[in-house]
């Protein structure tokens, strides 16, 4: 037997609200994915007018961050590019190197991933960080 802290819906909803509040009129319609430590979604959201591929991407980013315990940019720069490998080497079709997925850490342990899609990947990551900070306020 052992017990683990898991990410709950209440935290995910707090991150959702923080991100939606941070959107400006210059942002495109967004997609948001928050996944648990196994990359399984806790909350998925796609705004009106955001193409379906945006949410698929957000899901992949959240999955990647959660399961690899890495922000997607770290994964891209330090694991894929730096070793001159391609994504195929990991053998998991859900993995992505697109910027915008962040690992959610509590006391140093990864409990999930949060990811955005819809804008530039830089903006996606900035918005995901807004959600990450809203999560941190409670834990």
């Amino acid at each position, binding site marked *: 037997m052992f017990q683990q802290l*898991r990410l*709950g*819906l*209440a935290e*995910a*909803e707090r991150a959702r609200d923080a991100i939606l509040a941070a959107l400006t009129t210059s942002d495109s319609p967004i997609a948001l994915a928050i996944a648990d430590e*196994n990359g*399984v*979604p*806790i*909350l*998925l*959201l*796609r*705004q*009106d007018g955001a193409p*379906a591929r945006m*949410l698929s991407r957000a899901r992949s980013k959240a999955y990647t961050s959660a399961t690899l315990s890495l922000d997607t940019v770290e994964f891209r720069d330090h694991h894929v590019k730096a070793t001159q490998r391609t994504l195929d080497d990991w053998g998991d079709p859900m993995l992505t190197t697109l910027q915008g997925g962040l690992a959610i850490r509590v006391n140093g342990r990864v409990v999930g991933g949060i990811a955005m899609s819809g804008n530039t990947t830089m903006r996606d990551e900035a918005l995901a960080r807004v959600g990450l900070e809203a999560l941190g306020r409670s834990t």
Partner: protein
Amino acid sequence: MIQRRSIGLADAQVAVAAVLEAARPSDGALAIAVVDDDGNMVYQVRQDGAGPVQVRAAERKAYTAAYIGRDTSMWRLQIRHDGRTVADWANPQLTTLHGGWTLRRSSQVIGGLGVSGSGDEERDEQLALRGAEAAAQLAVAAWRTQRDPRRIRDRSSR
């Protein structure tokens, strides 16, 4: 060019909230998904304790209800009556698990709602219906505000 209607995030969130409100403590932890008219995800939540099985089932149920244009339980009856199996549709995302409800506006499919996790297929379906009702109620409310009271009398509240 054609116009198509789609559920939209605001209505999807209302439907999910209605399911959560209708859930009883005796129900298991739920996953609830709402997809648009093409079956693509709009909004999904997972209550604390619901597992990956529920997450996937809720999404598949919602997808099937929107894609096929039938509630999943009704579709199951139809398939069995016709002597077919789900495999005939050549789409691995389809399911006949109860609890997927087709969302319509003016008889057009605008999306699908899937519930999983209550512990009972029939109960999943009941809960999905509560969400679908809440979404339909929004249409009634919108109609009330848009109608011209000089031309159309509101009989819906009687």
